[in-house]
């Protein structure tokens, strides 16, 4: 990736180069040919020459220091850097006047040169990671072709209102959510969902913004304003993610507030106390200057949020939208994954397998279709689809969550639902328990028959569960479905811990139980399709919805949205979270360790300011590079 330097960085680079051009020959001349020593005013010439370098490389630092001190902000890093470097100059003049050599001028300059090099690297690296993330989110449409008064006009997507018709040509990005009113085309949603197979869409189908129209021109009736469209929601979600800071980040900002004052106080102590005891003030003052150089906690303050920023960004690239840094942290600690069955572990696409008794198939389906016709539940849809004929109308339906549906019309009553529904109404019927989902049908308190429905297990479900288990995570399945079909699904994906026949409110209760029990040291994730499990998604520590792009309710209720309907994304999400938190921790420990080591060595007089400046900007660059490694998590 090529990076264009910003204007600020370009001038910084220029200054680094020009100051080095003067500094290096000067240093050689000074060290080898001893310019200026031996005479009483011999320090003047090197002092002036070095000071020229100092001004070239450090005038902005000096300026900022003056401005910030004027703002009563004395613990500013620029100010401390100036004290340290000017202090080195002053000491050199002091020893020079005494005729003891001019050590210190070169150090003052070198510290600033390294400081600027470090700042330049920091700036480049930060910009680079910003761009790598920004390019991932290149889903925002630039314009919309709207038909107004019979003419096609290109306008900003924000200017199109609901009900207007837009035209999208082949190869263009769909700018707004809506319904196709004319044209048949393949639509590629890979930039949103990672689904590489394009979908063939025709009039009446819904399209979401951010997809690419591949084959031919389509006209779309807009159903959502741009601010409510899928693209805006995704971008908003990713952009807002950094507002929710993780515990580690909050800790770091608190730590940073203490770090600088403490180091500066230590520096003052080191300059004063030993001088009073042992004398030799210039040695102790010189050593304390190193403290000032490492007094900025920048390395940590920059690299920890950067790690989380990268973590969120790389997740988005993998079609995992995380709503905040704190969820990365929680996901890392997640010890229990609770799965919903239907639509999560299974495809949610139901199919009627058989109807008993067979001879009454048409009658059973006809009655069931009447009851289920208004329901959007996938089971209901599969029954209506199987029936495939005009459904009788004139019935009012009453839906009872967890039981089923009752349809009534002029004394005619159809019960359609679970075994529990039949029991509740005192209707005797044979219990089906071969693992399929059974929908019982009764007409006017008379049992008529049963429809058996099956639901296929999602590709990758088994692998995802086994990889999560390898990561030390406990997997649990909760379902409203019957024991037998729950058992069948649980066994085939490899989950031993499951609970069946749960009403939606029972799922909340179960998740709460897990949060208070095993989940005490970790966090409990609930993974659902987001359609009818919003309460559990919200109640759990981390609500993860998958494949629910376009459903505002699901996106609203969950903390992490998997736009790709693939369970292996969960494994990836967990791996990224784990890597991010590990690197964030390294970014605290390593810089701190180096800084403390430098402080100790400086106190003992073993290191000097050259080393200290590495402890400042060098460590910052290292930590930033470490954060960028998150981009390589597979």
């Amino acid at each position: 990736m090529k990076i264009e330097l910003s204007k600020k960085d370009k001038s910084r680079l220029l200054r680094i180069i020009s100051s080095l051009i003067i500094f290096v020959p000067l240093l050689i001349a000074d060290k080898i040919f001893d310019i200026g020593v031996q005479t009483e005013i011999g320090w003047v010439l090197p002092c002036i020459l070095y000071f020229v370098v100092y001004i070239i490389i450090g005038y902005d630092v000096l300026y900022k220091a003056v401005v910030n001190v004027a703002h009563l902000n004395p613990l500013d890093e620029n100010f401390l850097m100036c004290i340290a470097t000017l202090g080195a100059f002053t000491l050199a003049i002091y020893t020079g006047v005494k005729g003891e050599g001019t050590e210190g001028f070169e150090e003052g300059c070198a510290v600033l040169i390294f400081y600027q090099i470090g700042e330049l690297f920091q700036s480049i690296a930060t910009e680079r990671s910003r761009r790598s993330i920004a390019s991932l989110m290149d889903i925002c449409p630039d314009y919309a072709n709207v038909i107004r008064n019979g003419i096609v006009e290109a306008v900003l997507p924000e200017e199109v209102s609901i009900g207007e018709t837009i035209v999208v040509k082949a190869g263009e990005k769909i700018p707004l959510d809506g319904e196709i009113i004319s044209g048949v085309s393949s639509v590629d949603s890979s930039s949103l969902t990672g689904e590489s197979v394009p979908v063939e869409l025709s009039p009446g189908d819904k399209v979401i913004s951010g997809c690419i129209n591949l084959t031919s021109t389509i006209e779309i009736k807009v159903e959502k304003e741009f601010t409510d469209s899928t693209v805006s929601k995704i971008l908003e979600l990713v952009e807002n993610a950094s507002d929710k800071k993780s515990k580690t980040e909050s800790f770091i900002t608190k730590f940073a507030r203490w770090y600088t004052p403490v180091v500066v106080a230590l520096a003052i102590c080191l300059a004063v106390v030993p001088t009073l005891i042992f004398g030799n003030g210039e040695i102790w003052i010189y050593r304390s200057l190193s403290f000032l150089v490492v007094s900025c906690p920048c390395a940590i303050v920059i690299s920890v949020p950067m790690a989380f920023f990268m973590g969120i960004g790389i997740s988005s690239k993998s079609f995992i939208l995380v709503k905040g840094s704190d969820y990365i942290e929680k996901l890392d600690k997640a010890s229990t994954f609770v799965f919903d069955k239907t639509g999560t572990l299974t495809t949610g696409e139901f199919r009627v397998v058989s109807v008993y008794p067979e001879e009454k198939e048409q009658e059973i389906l006809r009655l069931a279709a009447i009851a289920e016709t208004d329901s959007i539940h996938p089971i209901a849809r599969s029954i209506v689809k199987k029936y495939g004929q005009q459904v009788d109308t004139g019935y009012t339906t009453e839906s009872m969550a967890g039981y089923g549906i009752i349809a009534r019309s002029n004394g005619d009553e159809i019960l359609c639902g679970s075994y529990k529904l039949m029991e509740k109404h005192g209707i005797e019927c044979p219990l089906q328990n071969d693992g399929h989902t059974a929908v019982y049908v009764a007409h006017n308190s008379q049992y008529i028959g049963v429809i058996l429905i099956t639901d296929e297990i999602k590709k990758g479900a088994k692998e995802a569960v086994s990889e999560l288990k390898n990561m030390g995570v406990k997997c649990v399945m909760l379902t409203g479905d019957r024991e037998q079909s729950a058992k069948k699904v649980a066994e085939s994906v490899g989950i031993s811990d499951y609970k069946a026949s749960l009403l939606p409110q029972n799922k909340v209760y179960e998740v709460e139980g897990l949060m208070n029990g095993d989940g005490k040291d970790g966090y409990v994730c609930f993974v659902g399709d987001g359609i009818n499990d919003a309460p559990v998604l919200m109640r759990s520590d981390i609500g993860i919805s998958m494949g629910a792009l376009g459903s505002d309710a699901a996106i609203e209720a969950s903390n992490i949205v998997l736009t790709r309907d693939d369970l292996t994304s969960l494994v990836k999400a967990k791996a990224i979270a784990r890597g991010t938190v590990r690197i964030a921790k390294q970014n605290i420990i390593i810089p701190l360790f180096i800084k403390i080591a430098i402080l100790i060595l400086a106190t003992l007089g073993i290191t000097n300011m050259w080393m200290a400046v590495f402890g400042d900007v060098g460590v910052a660059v290292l930590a930033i590079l470490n954060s960028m490694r998150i981009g390589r998590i597979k």
Partner: protein
Amino acid sequence: MKKVFRLENLGCANCAAKMEKAISKIEGVSFVSIGFMTRRLTIEADESSFDMILEKAQKIIKKFENDCKIVR
């Protein structure tokens, strides 16, 4: 009322943290977040005094980074 602004010339992560802390102390501010990586200032405050609060926030930001501006 919650609003998001871009911060121009935000160059120092530690300053961003200090700004955030100082802005959170302005009366009427219920939430503030400065993202160094995203260069975003998110501020939630009373609607009636929002402009005044933003003025104060800008002053604080200038105090830590002289050339940093809230883009309105």
